[in-house]
């Protein structure tokens, strides 16, 4: 069926009309026994067929604002002030019953976690057509064939039968597209996309983005696209609004926003992407993985891995989820004894298991985790957390220990007032800094960094990366830096290891890996990373086609 034909049963409102108008919206959330402001007076004007990008860091209130556009407040939140007009109806005053008639039918929502947002008990197609059938937008019998057409339009594999599957039988990227079909089924006027690709790998993200953009364009649906990723929003939106701490920072058409951001905050967001360390060739190999095989039970996850790390340099191990990069780290630390091969440290093979390793060996290889939250005992103060390795490895106690803890705090750019804080009293970036200090306290030769910046906002990420680099310069520490993010790789690495399905695709200097000629997988991976160019996706798709 032709897309325009499919769109014809929609009321023939002219493009260019204002569809959604939010004025001076205030929203509060309840926590710690009182109401706190989340959104502090934001305006939104969205015309029919327009796509607005809403970007900001965690805690900016993006999702809350997106849901408010539907007149919906999560439990524990309330809209306290302002007007929300959707197609000339005031949502803040509309009775719940009438709002329900809009939801799912004229305003649809696409959530971040597709796996959690589909009801595990129903087939996909039944969930896809649920809203359309309720509103009786078309005969019930036609809904199914329409859903299958949508599945086709979204380039889902076997569109005729995928609907009869249950959510757990379908992969994450496919589910996200089915959810888009579900939103599109009643031909809404507005779709709210709430970080729909954040949980996906980059190569999957490209496919999902492409199919979402295609279908929204086909039906001229207006959309609010919420994300923290600038490059992604640049592909999708006509104009972008930047949000911070519940306030609007600025709003501009996508192209002018990208080329000439006005506000300091926006500029700083943009410039994060430009940071890059010049690569250096190392010579003295400090750690090497020689022909490592490893398995969890019977599932083999590493196949004949070879990686080497030189003194004072950074090797970035990059790959998508399931590529085995974190497993490699577990083999190095001794948590997972390899099935074959050995880990050589300073010319000596390390015992396979943690138990067999000496204190000295443990001290020389330290680790920093992705989630600083769970990497620190919530019942210990910063002083205790940093102090323990000092006592354990170096025998420092009492005043000497405290003196050293203060020195370490200074190195990570925190002052002495932090020494008796608990982890719950720190921000995300501060927590990660304390973890760095704890690793540093052991005076290691190698630090394994497992996705240490991926849970942090971009500006905070940059601060952590710079800190790591300056510490490397000062103490000559080698980093094995595990990440899935190419921008981070560019920023910090000297050498790069690309992993795919438990195998090393290639290892080499940054300049070699990031420039052609590429092995096939590296090419796919690198070309899938969104760029800050509104035409990137379009160009990529025509290139690949």
């Amino acid at each position, binding site marked *: 069926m032709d897309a325009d034909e499919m769109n014809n049963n929609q009321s023939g409102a002219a493009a260019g009309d204002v569809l959604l108008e939010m004025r001076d919206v205030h929203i509060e959330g309840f926590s710690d026994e009182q109401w706190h402001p989340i959104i502090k007076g934001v305006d939104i004007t969205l015309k029919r067929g327009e796509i607005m990008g809403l970007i900001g860091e965690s805690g900016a209130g993006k999702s809350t604002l997106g849901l408010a556009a539907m007149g919906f407040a999560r439990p524990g939140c309330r809209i306290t002030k302002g007007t929300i007009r959707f197609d000339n109806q005031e949502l803040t005053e509309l009775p719940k019953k009438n709002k329900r008639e809009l939801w799912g039918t004229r305003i649809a929502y696409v959530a971040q976690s597709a796996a959690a947002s589909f009801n595990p008990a129903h087939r996909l197609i039944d969930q896809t057509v649920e809203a359309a059938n309720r509103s009786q937008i078309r005969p019930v019998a036609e809904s199914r064939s329409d859903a299958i057409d949508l599945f086709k339009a979204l380039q889902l594999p076997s569109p005729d039968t995928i609907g009869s599957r249950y959510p757990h039988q379908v992969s994450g990227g496919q589910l996200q597209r089915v959810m888009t079909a579900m939103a599109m089924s009643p031909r809404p006027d507005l779709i709210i996309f709430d970080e729909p690709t954040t949980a996906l790998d980059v190569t999957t993200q490209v496919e999902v983005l492409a199919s979402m953009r295609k279908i929204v364009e086909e039906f001229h649906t207006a959309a609010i696209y919420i994300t923290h990723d600038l490059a992604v929003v640049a592909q999708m939106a006509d104009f972008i609004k930047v949000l911070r701490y519940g306030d609007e920072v600025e709003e501009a058409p996508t192209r002018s926003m990208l080329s000439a951001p006005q506000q300091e905050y926006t500029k700083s967001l943009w410039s994060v992407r430009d940071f890059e360390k010049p690569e250096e060739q190392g010579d003295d190999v400090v750690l090497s993985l020689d022909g490592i095989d490893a398995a969890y039970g019977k599932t083999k996850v590493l196949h004949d891995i070879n990686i080497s790390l030189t003194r004072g340099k950074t090797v970035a191990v990059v790959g998508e989820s399931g590529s085995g990069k974190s497993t490699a780290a577990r083999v190095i630390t001794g948590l997972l004894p390899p099935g074959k091969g050995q880990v050589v440290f300073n010319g000596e093979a390390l015992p396979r298991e943690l138990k067999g390793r000496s204190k000295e060996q443990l001290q020389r290889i330290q680790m920093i985790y992705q989630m600083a939250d769970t990497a620190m005992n*919530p019942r210990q103060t910063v002083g205790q957390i940093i102090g323990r390795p000092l006592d354990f490895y170096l025998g420092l106690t009492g005043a000497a220990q405290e003196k050293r803890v203060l020195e370490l705090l200074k190195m990570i750019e925190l002052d002495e007032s932090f020494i008796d804080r608990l982890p719950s009293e720190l*921000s995300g970036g501060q927590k990660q800094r304390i973890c760095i200090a704890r690793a540093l306290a052991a005076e290691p030769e190698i630090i394994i960094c497992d996705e240490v910046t991926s849970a942090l906002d971009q500006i905070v990420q940059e601060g952590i990366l710079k800190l790591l680099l300056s510490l490397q310069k000062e103490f000559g520490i080698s980093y094995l830096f595990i990440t899935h993010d190419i921008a981070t790789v560019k920023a910090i690495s000297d050498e790069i290891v690309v992993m795919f399905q438990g195998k090393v695709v290639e290892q080499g200097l940054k300049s070699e890996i990031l420039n052609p000629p590429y092995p096939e997988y590296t090419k796919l991976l690198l070309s899938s990373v969104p760029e800050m160019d509104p035409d990137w996706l379009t160009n990529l798709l025509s290139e690949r086609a």
Partner: protein
Amino acid sequence: MNTQYENYSAAAEVGAVRKRRSRLERIWIDLKKAPLSAWFGMIVVFAYMVVALFAPLIAPYGEAEVFPEANAAWSSQFIFGTDQIGRDMLSRLIYGARNTMGIALMTTLLSFLIGGSLGLIAAISRGWLDQLLSRSVDVLMAIPSLIFALMLLSIFGSTVTNLVIIIALLDSTRVFRLTRSVAVNVVVMDYVEAAKLRGEGLGWIMRKELLPNIMPPLVAEFGLRFSFVFLTIAALSFLGVGIQPPTADWGSMVRDNANLIQFAGIDFRIGLTPLLPAAAIALLTVAVNFVVDWFLHKTSGIRDEH
């Protein structure tokens, strides 16, 4: 790069900074916010503890002191009358607090000692030891504990020592399960892995990394287990196979005076007499439950904040 955001993070970045307060201040703030039911519970528990500790000072007569008039009515001499063989009801109620609560407390402590330590060991070690312990506990829990206790008491006889050991063993299965499941959640945390990677021993990990982080649910469970054990012992005594005479005990006091209830139509207060020890039991367990309910609500609320 503009410098404005260069040093954003360091000390200036605001985390979820809560106001810094001493532990006492925090407790006081929590208490002020506690609902009425929790206050009621705490006051009752405190009162029971005072009565149990100072029973000989408070009770007007001795625990086993027999007076000539059995089943005497309520009077100024015997505030709640006398029991079926002429002992002062009030004095026995007061001594009963000491006996029943003391035995229940001992049992609960023992069951936590056994179940708690085995649960921690199972959670850390995993592997065959964990499997063995967990499967055995599954089987033991497949028999209702009151029934199991009845059976074991019929074999070993009803002495206080047997009662404490049998109930503690049966109850420790539940403590084991809880401790293990809570500890397993903590064991997978990165900070425990970090401690292992540092080379810390089992003792340190148990004491410093695990225990402080599983205390809140364990404390709540202690309250619940205590009231459960208390009810089980009361039920066994009521059935005549628990604490044996002449020790004053609320469960058996209910049983011994139960037939007075039919005289309620003639003298309401006499009819109430068997309900007094039963009410004493109920009041304490209700109070403990109120406190635990508030505590659970409070500690789970803190978890939400993160």
